[in-house]
């Protein structure tokens, strides 16, 4: 263009010079014939006209070419713009962050994604590969760079890797980075372009699923998943089984898949339980059962299993999940326990029978003795010595009879755990009790204080209640101190559905530290008193415990004894 302009200018200058010289020569030669002024004027007109035409030609030609160039330029520009837009849209649509690395210069440019996804503003983004590498999680960094450089060395065309990339807020995102390489004519890598995809969500989901999977693989309980339905009348076939199931059943994983759980059942598997399970599957209901299964070596084992339907999004059953636990040991213990209980019950029954027989055999001659002694009363005996002998004989027989009767009562209490209760007026019961002890009370005349507190009624067994307090009162009378008048305080109080009765005397007391555990025991006697059988407190404790109550004791030698009894109000 420049050359052409010079060319045209040169041609034009030469032509103008030539014309000027010609017209000068002509003017000089023919000056005589020619009017000098007219000639000059005509010459100028001619020159101007020719120049004008020439100019027009050149200008119009130039103009035409310029318009064409301009048009081309605009088209190119539009194309560029469109392609740029497309690129941005694609980047946006894929949420990819695109980077462009000019390797020899070590210069990287990033697209808008670096802000949109990782939160870096333009001035935070580094211009070289160091910035990129620095933001990769330390745990991933070495592995990633090794892979990347080995890729660059091998000069294959494509590369991809997963790593954690640091965001502007210092958190990390899992990314999938894919890139390809551009080479010069010598095959040297000069440029690499890549797209980073944020896969944090997928990765988290993957980790979650992996964690969930460990439940399946690591569980000590057997887990199997079966199909939703079965074509034959069997339990649907197994599609998954965890290692625990393999271990429990003794079958390899491959031997289990495709089998129906029926496969593991055998002749001792309870048919009713199997039917229960098939019914549940038919009715799409969850099921729990205990059944005998067979291992590969045909040995039996007990499992407790659940069979639970799994629904898909359309609310149709897609699978069944069954969790099974080996309860063979449990079953064995249960069976042993059952046998033990049966044996104990039988022993207990035998012992009870034995005690009834013994007591009968003791009572039979004893009742004869008592009956015969009753007859003696009608005779007048003159011989004093014989009278003395008979009196002793009678006393001993009565004592023996009482002991046997008390023992019999103990057996009867132990034998009837459920007793009849009735609602009784507490004042009436105590009146009754005192009436029964009338003779002894008249003889000793103790100071007796009964404080009924807030209690008017008690729901209890009359016979037991009376027996308990007759025993306690008898003890107080029997073991009173010779040094002071006997005082008995009975305090009754109801609180929180429990009636508490404190029974306190100022008698000779019991050396508890010596007898602590034996106070309520059978045949325990703590005083060298005649007529003491060592049965009273044992009987009291048996009776109160049969009614669901408790009894405790506090005592000090030569100070007195206090019993605390509790009864249920209802």
């Amino acid at each position, binding site marked *: 263009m420049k050359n052409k302009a010079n060319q045209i200018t040169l041609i034009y200058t030469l032509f103008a010079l030539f014309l000027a010289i010609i017209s000068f020569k002509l003017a000089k030669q023919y000056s005589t014939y020619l009017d000098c002024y007219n000639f000059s004027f005509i010459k100028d007109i001619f020159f101007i006209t020719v120049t004008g035409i020439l100019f027009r030609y050149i200008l119009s030609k130039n103009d035409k070419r310029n318009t064409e160039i301009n048009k081309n330029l605009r088209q190119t520009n539009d194309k560029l713009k469109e392609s740029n837009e497309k690129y941005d849209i694609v980047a946006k649509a894929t949420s990819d962050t695109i980077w462009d690395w000019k390797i020899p210069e070590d210069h990287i440019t990033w697209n808008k994604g670096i802000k949109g996804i990782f939160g870096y503003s333009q001035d935070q983004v580094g211009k070289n590969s160091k910035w990129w590498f620095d933001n990769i999680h330390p745990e991933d960094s070495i592995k990633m760079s090794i892979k990347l450089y080995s890729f660059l060395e091998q000069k294959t065309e494509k590369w991809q890797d997963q790593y954690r990339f640091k965001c502007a807020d210092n958190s990390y995102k899992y990314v999938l980075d894919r890139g390809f390489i551009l080479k010069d004519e010598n095959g040297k890598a000069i440029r690499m372009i890549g797209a980073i995809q944020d896969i944090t969500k997928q990765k988290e989901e993957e980790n979650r699923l992996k964690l969930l999977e460990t439940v399946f693989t690591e569980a000590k309980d057997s887990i199997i998943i079966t199909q939703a339905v079965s074509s034959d009348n069997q339990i649907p076939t197994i599609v998954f089984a965890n290692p625990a199931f393999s271990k429990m059943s003794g079958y390899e994983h491959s031997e289990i898949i495709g089998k129906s759980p029926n496969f593991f059942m055998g002749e001792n598997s309870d048919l009713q339980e199997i039917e229960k399970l098939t019914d549940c599957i038919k009715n799409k209901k969850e099921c729990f059962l205990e059944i005998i299964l067979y291992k590969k070596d045909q040995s039996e084992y007990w499992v407790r299993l659940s069979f639970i339907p799994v629904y898909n999004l359309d609310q149709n059953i897609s699978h069944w999940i069954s969790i099974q636990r080996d309860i063979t040991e449990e079953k064995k213990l249960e069976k042993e326990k059952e046998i033990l209980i049966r044996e104990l019950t039988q022993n207990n029954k035998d012992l009870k029978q034995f005690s*009834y027989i013994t*007591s*009968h055999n003791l*009572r*039979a*001659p*004893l*009742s*004869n003795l*008592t*009956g*015969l002694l*009753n*007859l003696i009363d*009608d005779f007048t005996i003159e011989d004093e010595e014989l009278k003395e002998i008979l009196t002793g004989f009678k006393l001993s027989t009565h004592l023996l009879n009482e002991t046997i009767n008390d023992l*019999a009562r103990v*057996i*009867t209490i132990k*034998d*009837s755990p459920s007793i009849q209760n009735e609602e009784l007026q507490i004042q009436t019961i105590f009146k009754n009790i005192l009436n029964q002890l009338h003779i002894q009370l008249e003889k000793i005349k103790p100071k007796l204080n009964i404080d009924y507190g807030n209690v008017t009624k008690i729901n209890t067994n009359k016979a037991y209640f009376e027996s308990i307090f007759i025993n306690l009162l008898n003890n107080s009378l029997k073991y009173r101190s010779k040094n002071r008048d006997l005082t008995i305080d009975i305090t009754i109080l109801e609180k929180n559905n429990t009636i508490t009765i404190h029974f306190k005397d100022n008698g000779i007391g019991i050396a508890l530290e010596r007898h602590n555990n034996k106070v309520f025991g059978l045949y325990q006697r703590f005083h060298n008193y005649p007529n003491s059988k060592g049965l009273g407190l044992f009987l009291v404790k048996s009776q109160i415990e049969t009614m669901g109550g408790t009894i405790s004791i506090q005592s000090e030698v030569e100070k007195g004894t206090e019993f605390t009894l509790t009864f249920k109000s209802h």
Partner: protein
Amino acid sequence: MLELIMCVDDDPISLMLFKKVVNKALFANEIINATNGEEAIILFNTINNTTNLKKPQLIFLDLNMPLMSGWEFLDLFNASNFFNLNNTKVIILTSTIDPEDIKKSKSYSNVIEFLSKPITIEMLDYLKSKI
């Protein structure tokens, strides 16, 4: 006063005692006895087969006896209409305390009382008022 009663007991002292107390209490004119259930059945058989013999109005029955216990006797006695023509009432007189026995005695409609040995004049007076 009853005309004739029967006492079934294997213990001779018990029988002796029973006789003495019955006499003292003026409870019955005559007492016949058997020492076990089987003997009692044979005795009843004789009574039934002999026209002139009186039938006992009341039986005092012990439970624990050799050969045939009180329960076995009751079952046999009640099962046969022949032995039970006059619907004789039975009183169990025993030294057992097994509550099962007391419960069992209630299942026999002709057992009217369950008494613990020894027999006393008071008991017989009470029975007099009951019959």
